C-alpha cells in the first residue's frame, strides 16, 4: 500500500519539477523542431532535385515528402531524449543528496524505480504531444483516431526508453557518466532508429544495427500510425517494443534495488 503511494509520490515530484522548469520544456522542444524544419526542409528540396522531381524521390519514402516522412521520427526523437534525460536525473539526485532522502524512506526500491519510470514516461509523452502542433506544417492531417492511438504508443515507447535510462543511471556515481550515456546510448539509438532515413535497401551492416535497435520498431509503428508508412509488420513492432519495455523495467528495478 505504502509502496503505491511511493510510486505516486516519485511520479508526482518528477511532474512538478518538469512543470516548474519552463526552460527545460522549451529546450527539449527546440532541438527536434530545429531538426524538423531546418534539416527536413533542406533535405526535402535536396531529395526532390536529386531524384528529378518530388514524386519519384518520394517513392522510397512511401510516397511522402521527406519532411513528412521524418516527422514521426522527430516525435520519436523527442520522446527518446526526454525519457533518457528524466532517467538520468537520478545521477543529479545523487549528486545533490536528495536520493538519500528517497533511499531511507520506508518505500521499497522497486516503487522508486517504477515511479521514476512512470514519471519520465509521462513527461516524455507530454513533450511528444507538444510536437503534434507541427503536424499541419509538415503535411500531416491528424484525426482524432490517430491521436487516440498515439498517446498510449508514445507512453509505451517512453516507458521503454526511461527504463533503459534507469538501468544505466541507477548505479552511476558521477556526472561524467552522463557524457557516456549521451555518446554511447542516446546518439547511436537515435541515428540507428530510422527516424531520419527509410529502412528499405540499407547495406547489410546498417540493416543489422537498425534491427537490433529496439527504438527502430517504435519509430516504425509511430510512422505507421501518423502517416501510414511502415517497414516491419505492425504486430512485430508492438511485440518488440512491449517485450523490450518489460525486460528493461525489470532490469531497472533490479539495478536500482542493488544500490547501497
Amino acid at each position, binding site marked *: 500500500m505504502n509502496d503505491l503511494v511511493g510510486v505516486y*509520490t516519485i511520479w508526482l515530484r518528477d511532474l512538478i519539477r518538469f512543470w516548474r522548469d519552463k526552460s527545460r520544456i522549451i529546450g527539449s522542444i527546440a532541438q527536434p523542431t530545429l531538426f524538423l524544419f531546418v534539416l527536413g526542409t533542406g533535405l526535402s528540396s535536396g531529395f526532390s532535385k536529386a531524384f528529378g522531381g518530388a514524386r519519384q524521390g518520394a517513392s522510397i519514402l512511401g510516397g511522402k515528402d521527406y519532411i513528412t516522412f521524418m516527422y514521426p521520427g522527430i516525435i520519436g526523437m523527442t520522446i527518446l531524449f526526454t525519457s533518457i534525460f528524466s532517467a538520468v536525473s537520478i545521477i543529479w539526485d545523487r549528486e*545533490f543528496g*536528495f536520493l538519500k*532522502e*528517497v533511499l*531511507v524512506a*520506508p*518505500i521499497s526500491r522497486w516503487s522508486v524505480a517504477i515511479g521514476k519510470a512512470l514519471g519520465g514516461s509521462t513527461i516524455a509523452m507530454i513533450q511528444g504531444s507538444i510536437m503534434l502542433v507541427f503536424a499541419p506544417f509538415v503535411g500531416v492531417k491528424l484525426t482524432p483516431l490517430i491521436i487516440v492511438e498515439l498517446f498510449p504508443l508514445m507512453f509505451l515507447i517512453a516507458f521503454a526508453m526511461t527504463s533503459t535510462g534507469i538501468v544505466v543511471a541507477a548505479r552511476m556515481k558521477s556526472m561524467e557518466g552522463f557524457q557516456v550515456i549521451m555518446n554511447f546510448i542516446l546518439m547511436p539509438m537515435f541515428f540507428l532508429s530510422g527516424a531520419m532515413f527509410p529502412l528499405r535497401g540499407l547495406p547489410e551492416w546498417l540493416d543489422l544495427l537498425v534491427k537490433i535497435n529496439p527504438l527502430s520498431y517504435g519509430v516504425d509503428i509511430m510512422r505507421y500510425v501518423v502517416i501510414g508508412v511502415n517497414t516491419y509488420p505492425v504486430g512485430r513492432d508492438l511485440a518488440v517494443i512491449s517485450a523490450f519495455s518489460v525486460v528493461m523495467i525489470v532490469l531497472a528495478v533490479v539495478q536500482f534495488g542493488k544500490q547501497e
Partner: protein
Amino acid sequence: MSDNGAIIHVREITKRFGDVEAVKGITFDVEKGELFGFLGPNGAGKTTTINILCTLLKPTSGTAVLNGFDVTAKPNDVRRSIGLVFQDPSLDDRLTAWENLQFHALVYGVPTEERLGRIENVLKMVELYERRNDAVKTFSGGMKRRLEIARGLLHYPKVLFLDEPTLGLDPQTRSHIWEYIHELKKREGTTVFLTTHYMDEAENCGRIAIIDHGKIVALDTPDNLKDKVGGDVITVKTDDDGAAKRLIEERYKLEAAVDPHGVSFKVKGGEEFIPSFVKDFERKILSISLRRPTLEDVFLSLTGRAIRDEESGAKDQMRVAAKAWTRRR
C-alpha cells in the same frame, strides 16, 4: 534479540572503504527513549555508523539490530522505524519548502488527516512558515538546514538520527529546535541518536560515546565522563610561572602544564584548593580561573587532541578570580 529494553544493538561493526577502515569494530546499545550522543573529530566514523544503522551502507562485518530488525536482513522494517537529519544537504531545491515536506509526509505514510497540521507545525517551529511556497533554491544555508530538521521531525519516528543537526545555526534557532526535540521525546518516547560538535548540545545526552579513528574510546553519562578527567581545571597566571609549576608539582603532587595563559592543572574540589594555593604561593598572582571539566577536556584527555579548535565550551567556563589579584604579604 530485544533484551534489556535496548532499541539499538550494535555488535562489532566494521566498515571498510577500500584501504580505509572507517569503523573498526564498535559495540554499543541504545536504550529505548534515550538521547544518545556520538562525539568525535572529523573522520572518526560517526556518519558511517549512522549510514549503517539507517541501511544506506552495509557493514563489512558485525551485526546491528534496530527496533528488533537486523539492518542488513530487514532494511525495509528498519526504515519504517527511523527518521534522519543528514549531515549533508538532501533537499530537492526545485521544490518549495511545503512540497519537500509533503513529499516526506507521503512516503512516510503520515496519516492524511494529520498531514497538513504537522507540516504547518514544523514549519512554524523553524520559522519558515511564511516562506513555505518559495522554492528551496532561494533559501539561505541556515534556512535549508532548518527545513531539513523540520522534515526529520515530521513523521514521529521510533528512532531519530541527527547528524550534526544544528551546525551553523544561530543560538536562538538551536534552542527552538532543542525544545521541539525534547517535547517529541517526552510525548512520543522517541529515541534520539545524535552526533554533534557542540559541547552544550552533547550535555543534553543521557549517554555519550566518544569515538575516535573508528573506535569507541569511552561511553558513559556526561557527568561520569567528566569525573574521569580528574577534577576541575585551574589556570593560574603569576609573575613567575616556573615557580608556580614547581610548587604545584612538589607540594600538591599534581601534573601541571605551562603555556602562555599560565599554569594549568586539574584538581578535585577546585574551590577549596584555590585559597590554600593563594596562601602557599609567595609571588605575585595575576589571575586565577577555575572551570568545570568539559566534554572537550574529556576528549582531550582520552585522545590527546582537541575535537575542534573553535569550540571552547564557553558556557562551561566559570571565571572565579579577578584579574591582577595582588596578594599582600
